[in-house]
């Protein structure tokens, strides 16, 4: 990943004791700390940057927003300013959408998104007034799970109330939540309620187990994606576990709410590490969730077992492609002819998974999936929900909307819930998750 300092994972390289402990081999000694740091030392990452500006040319926000200085400033340059002159974090860091595309293109593996997350966390901690409307709004948006949990108690009422015109106008005026978007509908039965009702796993298997990290959206809004995942994995003989879990933290990282994210991470790491101990690998249906568990967790938090969780986490389709003959299974399946306009979420791209869905569905007779280009969808979770970002969000998405309109497919496909919102918002298409297509073909 990055060569930034990783929090100590408990494997015994505490510099204070290393020199006196005869059991620690010499190559495990930490280098002498020339620059004492508090928390994470991002210096090696900053030093690896040779200012080629590749990240700046890849940043979707910088592309449409002249005010945004770009990832090179937000990361390495701001880090130096902060260290040497104790300059305040620039408020433009809140305009970064945390798409993490900069990570994906940096030829020197500078941990850009880690630097952005750290800077944003500092900004919120040091410079944001916790009584300000912006702070309260960001906190509500990033704690989506809490709102969704409330709404799930009375889903039908919530669906009407949340999209009630005058209320939305008021939300925009007072809270800066754009009135341009439709709030997603809440399911009348959450995924977990369905899971309990069906009596949990229907396939017992000690050899093949997966623990499903469903995140918030599959649970409260699109349980059909979670059900598809369960049925597809059971089709291949896996025992599915559904551990206790909170939010992956993705919207919290993006809003600099690191302590909220850490609280949820503690729940997630505990439940998922226990499942790993029971022989399971962790799978997610949302690419931002798998991204958070794999990359952001070990980069930002120091929790027991967090490295182990990162090493055992997979995106669902990725897992099947590694462990099962998915193409072979699909060759024997009967599917109705259909075509999809597929968009790869940035967080799929950053895991090296941008092409897997198109590659897979192209191998099914009668199914075509066309990639609608490599631009970011522009919504980036909570980013495009903020009234002040709405225009930028739509400008970023413009290229994707055009490609979708040009493609003959009338149905969109993506793994990411908020990308799906944006695709639907910009084109009116219905959007499917790859797992739903697999479910239709296999189960």
């Amino acid at each position, binding site marked *: *990943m990055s060569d930034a300092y990783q929090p100590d994972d408990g494997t015994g390289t505490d510099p204070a004791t290393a020199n006196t402990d005869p059991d620690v081999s010499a190559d495990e000694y930490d280098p002498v700390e020339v620059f004492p740091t508090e928390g994470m030392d991002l210096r090696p990452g900053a030093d690896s940057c040779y200012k080629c500006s*590749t990240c*700046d040319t890849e940043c979707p926000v910088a*592309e449409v927003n*002249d005010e945004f200085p770009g990832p090179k400033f937000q990361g390495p340059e701001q880090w130096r300013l902060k260290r040497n002159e104790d300059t305040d974090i620039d408020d433009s860091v809140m305009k970064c959408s945390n798409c993490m595309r900069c990570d994906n*293109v940096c*030829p020197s593996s500078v941990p850009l998104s880690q630097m952005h997350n750290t800077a944003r966390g500092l900004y919120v901690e040091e410079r944001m007034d916790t009584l300000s409307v912006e702070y309260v709004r960001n906190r509500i948006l990033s704690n989506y799970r809490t709102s969704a949990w409330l709404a799930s108690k009375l889903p039908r009422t919530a669906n009407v109330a949340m999209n009630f015109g005058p209320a939305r106008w008021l939300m925009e005026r007072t809270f800066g939540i754009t009135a341009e978007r439709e709030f997603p509908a809440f399911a009348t039965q959450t995924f977990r309620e369905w899971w309990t009702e069906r009596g949990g796993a229907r396939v017992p298997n000690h050899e093949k187990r997966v623990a499903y990290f469903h995140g918030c959206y599959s649970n409260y809004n699109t349980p059909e994606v979670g059900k598809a995942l369960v049925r597809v994995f059971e089709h291949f003989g896996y025992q599915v576990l559904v551990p206790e879990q909170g939010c992956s933290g993705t919207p919290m990282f993006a809003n600099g709410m690191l302590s909220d994210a850490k609280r949820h991470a503690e729940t997630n790491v505990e439940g998922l590490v226990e499942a790993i101990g029971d022989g399971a690998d962790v799978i997610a249906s949302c690419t931002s969730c798998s991204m958070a568990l794999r990359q952001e967790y070990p980069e930002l938090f120091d929790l027991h077992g967090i490295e182990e969780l*990162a090493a055992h*986490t997979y995106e669902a389709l990725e897992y099947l492609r590694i462990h099962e003959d998915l193409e072979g299974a699909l060759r024997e399946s009967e599917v109705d002819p259909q075509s999809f306009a597929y968009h790869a979420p940035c967080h799929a791209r950053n895991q*090296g998974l941008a092409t897997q869905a198109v590659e897979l569905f192209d191998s099914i007779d009668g199914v075509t999936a066309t990639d609608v280009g490599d631009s970011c969808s522009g919504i980036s979770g909570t980013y495009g929900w903020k009234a002040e970002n709405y225009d930028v969000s739509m400008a970023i998405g413009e290229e994707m909307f055009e490609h979708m309109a040009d493609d003959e497919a009338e149905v969109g496909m993506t793994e990411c819930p908020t990308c799906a919102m944006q695709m639907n918002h910009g084109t009116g298409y219905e959007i499917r998750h790859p797992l739903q297509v697999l479910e239709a073909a296999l189960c």
Partner: protein
Amino acid sequence: MAISDDVLVVGGGLAGMTAAVAAARGGARVRLLSHKASTLRNASGLIDVLGTDPESGAPLADPFDGLDALPGEHPYRILGEAAIREGLDLFDDLLGDRYLGSHTDRNALVPTHGGTVKPTARYPESTGSGLASSRERTLLVGFETITDFDAPLAAAHLENAGVPFEVRGVTLPFPGEFRADVRVTRMAHALDEDREAPVDGRPGTRAALAERVSEHLDGEERVGLPALLGDERGEEVREQLSTRLGTDVFEVPMGPPSLPGLRLEDALEAALHEEGVRVESGNPVVGYEGDDRVETVTVERVHREVPYEAEQVILATGGLVGKGIRSSRSGVCEPIFGCHVPQPEDRYDWFSEGVFDDQPFARFGLRIDEGCRPLDGRGETEFENLRAVGAVCGGYDSAREKSASGVSLATAATAGRRAAECL
């Protein structure tokens, strides 16, 4: 094994992408893995073969005249002239009329942003009317925020080099409201979209730019601007500027991030798609399984290792800069397959004292046979199904010779074809 292909290419630069196309055209099912987005955006977009006479160091009129003077371990000497021509033919076929220079064996002389003249075998169509061999009077135009290109300085450099034309440089503000540290891609896209200026009734970016340049024209027959004249609609942008100015308009290649490099990247990515090559980017290849043959290569996916199986493997990971060759205090190595990298025993023999001396480290890389297979210390093939292409190969000094792209294309065409033949 779930992920399995005929040919696996590791690396997504010029050499990797063209090798993948060559293998796919040979009938193979090909997958290309690249750690990051392609680094072609760090390249000038010029395709050189041999720009410098190996004996005198002077610019070379015909690259093929210099081949015999190259040392025996040079990839050109190992593969032969036919391989270079095969590589160029493949490139010409892929790029069509977007590149010029295929009508002759002779090098073209392309002015660069530093005011030097680069001898090159193929050059983007946008640089075509700027060649230093023409006698047309020239105006170079730089922009205030683009510090990489100081037009008056570049013009003075060109004059000093004795070009056969009069040349002058001016620096202008770029039309529109941009940050002082604006990226070239922003300016290119503003020209692509021909955005209206924010004030009503003002012309779009293209017209505004033409207007500003025309104020400084003094009978020049051609105008050279930094290579940011559009990204996807470059031809249209240049045509309109040319019509409004009544002169030829050409681009001067720049440092990174380079628009001609980005355009080349787009064209090659389209070719990969056309040939059905499967492309995965975002994770590094870190190792392999196998003995005399490479059975699988190991991809590190965010803390975890995933095997990819293939009959034939092509290594295109770049050199010291591209990190396909790694160096430490104790030695120089090829990190994925542990291929032999010839190097002096004593670290002080890796380099020479003078900065511009012939530097031994510049030639570090793998030795290959005529099928591009890396050789071990005894001159035997390292693996029967592994081939190396581009800058990971050693025995040549691309910066001195001006031969980087030519070696990439020659090795890629050879390795791609041979890999497909071996299936």
